């Protein structure tokens, strides 16, 4: 047996020993005992019991601080005992006002240096440091709550028969984090929902039959109005979205047999009114938006890229656009109708050369090829990030709705176009993710390049003119 096998066989030692070795240790016990022995001489003279308790409390706080630093990968190098405790209190009380706190957090993230700090004028604010702390602790996603604090959620329940068998789906409405109502379905696993004028449409697939989905209507009080199978005689069909149209009926968008784009119309009482299928090939339906006379949809796959298709109100595909040129691929991430135009949020990546030999993710093939060819397995963020930033440019395309031709575009280097939205005052917001730090992780299965992006927000007025740029302070993950 080799030492490595022995190391593995240690796995099954008594769990009580494993737990005991993980218990927080009261450090400096030996020193404390010596101090207590000396201090005992003074107890008679003064009420030094208070002093001992105070000292014990200080030790406990210091121990807690050290454990906190260890748990969160923070370094104590160069810090005094007092500074360690101050930073610990600064973070745990969410004050973030101590001058050294930001520096300690940043130093703990040196592998993913936040270059975005260079953009800031002067010292980061407590809010900046708190955001950085939240991001460090894997809270990169910021939850945006509904303005009315109404949230819908769905969950699954499994049967307790020794196996993980589906039993029920629950669809629930919350207001101000309080459950308002809950509805259950045993026929299908909920995969999505759409809000309509008088309630919600919920849909999903049966656990043992992929030939059709189910669809149900729930009113605002949580009553199930109707539920039924959504059947169009495919071997496999999946509902992508449900949109209430201008006539008050429901347009159900689905993908049939991984080959057809389908539009099925239902009346408010659940009566099937119309069905149309159109061949699109093996493209997923990634996004769909209402547009004059019908819809526009973003379809794509990871081999051929994305396309925009225009669909009339009956489900016929009338137009199809793709965006590319000799030098760049365009990757559309979001789209919206605004000011009578179609706005496409996208990012470009270079067309890879024919000399590339790698088989890795195609957006960054040039970089992966360079790293592999030169046997580089470890590269600093300082060196890698400029290479990756050079690979990406965010673009906002303003397109003619009838031809799809871009009439205007905005670009931001080193970034990727993200979400589009419209404010209450009718302005268009375009989110752009600026790549600020990156790292190379060839051993990770779910991605090869990681890092962080800072989100910038661009505002366009009702005339389509860019009026402002704002650094939101939000951070999101970069994963390719």
């Amino acid at each position: 047996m080799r030492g490595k096998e022995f190391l593995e066989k240690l796995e099954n030692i008594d769990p009580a020993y494993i737990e005991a070795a993980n218990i927080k240790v009261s450090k400096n016990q030996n020193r404390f005992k010596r101090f207590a022995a000396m201090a005992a001489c003074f107890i008679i003279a003064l009420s030094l019991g208070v002093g001992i308790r105070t000292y014990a409390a200080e030790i406990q706080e210091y121990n807690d601080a050290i454990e906190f630093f260890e748990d969160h990968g923070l370094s104590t190098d160069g810090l005094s005992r007092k500074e360690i405790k101050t930073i610990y209190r600064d973070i745990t009380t969410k004050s973030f006002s101590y001058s050294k706190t930001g520096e300690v957090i940043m130093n703990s993230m040196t592998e993913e240096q936040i270059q975005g700090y260079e953009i800031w004028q002067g010292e980061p604010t407590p809010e900046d440091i708190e955001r950085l702390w939240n991001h460090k602790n894997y809270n990169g996603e910021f939850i945006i709550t509904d303005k009315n604090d109404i949230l819908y959620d769905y969950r699954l329940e499994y049967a307790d028969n020794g196996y993980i068998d589906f039993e029920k789906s629950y669809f629930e409405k919350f207001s101000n984090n309080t459950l308002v109502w809950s509805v259950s379905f045993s026929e299908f696993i909920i995969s999505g929902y759409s809000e309509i004028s008088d309630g919600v449409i919920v849909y999903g697939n049966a656990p043992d039959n992929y030939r059709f989905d189910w669809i149900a209507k729930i009113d605002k009080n949580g009553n199930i109005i109707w539920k039924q199978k959504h059947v169009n005689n495919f071997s496999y069909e999946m509902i992508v979205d449900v949109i209430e149209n201008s006539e008050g009926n429901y347009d159900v968008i689905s993908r049939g047999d991984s080959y057809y784009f389908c539009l099925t119309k239902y009346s408010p009482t659940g009566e099937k009114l119309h069905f149309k299928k159109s061949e699109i090939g093996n493209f997923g339906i990634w996004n769909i938006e209402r547009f004059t006379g019908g819809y526009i949809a973003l379809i794509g796959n990871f081999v051929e890229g994305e396309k925009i298709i225009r669909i009339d109100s009956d489900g016929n595909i009338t137009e199809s656009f793709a965006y590319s040129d000799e030098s760049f691929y365009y990757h559309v991430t979001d789209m919206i109708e605004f000011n009578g135009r179609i706005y496409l949020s996208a990012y470009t990546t270079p067309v890879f050369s024919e000399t590339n030999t790698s088989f890795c993710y195609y957006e960054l093939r040039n970089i992966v090829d360079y790293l592999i060819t030169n046997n580089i397995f470890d590269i600093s963020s300082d060196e890698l990030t400029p290479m990756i930033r050079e690979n990406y440019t965010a673009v906002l395309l303003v397109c003619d709705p009838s031809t799809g031709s871009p009439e205007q575009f905005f670009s931001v280097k080193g970034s990727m176009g993200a979400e589009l939205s419209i404010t209450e005052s009718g302005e268009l917001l375009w989110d752009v993710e600026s790549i600020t730090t990156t790292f190379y992780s060839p051993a990770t299965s779910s991605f090869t390049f990681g890092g962080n992006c800072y989100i910038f927000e661009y505002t366009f007025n009702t005339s389509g003119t860019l009026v402002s740029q704002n650094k939101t302070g939000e951070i999101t993950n970069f994963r390719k």
Partner: protein
Amino acid sequence: MNDGKIVDLYLERNEEAIKYTSDKYGASLRRIAYGIVNDKSTAEECENDTYVRAWNSIPPHEPREYLFAFLARITRHIALDICKERRALKRTALICELSAELEQCIPYPDDKSIIDSITLCDGINKFLGTLESEKRNVFIRRYWYMDSISAISKRYSISQSKIKSMLLRTRNQLKEFLTKEGYEL
């Protein structure tokens, strides 16, 4: 939430069990994984895989008294497997170092005899039971949690040289124990 209640949630197949597990032990599990794989994202993967395996193994297991150890064992196993499968160059240096140290405990390193894992574990547990708690904890922190010497030194406020000599003596004692008890490895 105490461990017993968290285990109850698993037994009820309530997905909140994962959330409470993550809140209570996520950071510690990530730290164990990171200590082995030395990659943040891979450590996150190990943590997530731990939750899946915990979900699939409670029931039949009901680790009410030792939930952390139960989870930590899964995480350690996953992380070591990842190192093996992916031959992560970054981390095999530590595993080689620990393996080399533990080889000193093996009575007959060239013997081709195969020993049953359970029997060996019984032997190691018996040996660990003979140690005073400080020595036992240091040994487990080094070879189970794979802490560095400096991390153990900070944790227990013992000098690094004392940690090293303590580990050396413990390894020698383990070898002697296994030899006396008739374990041939």
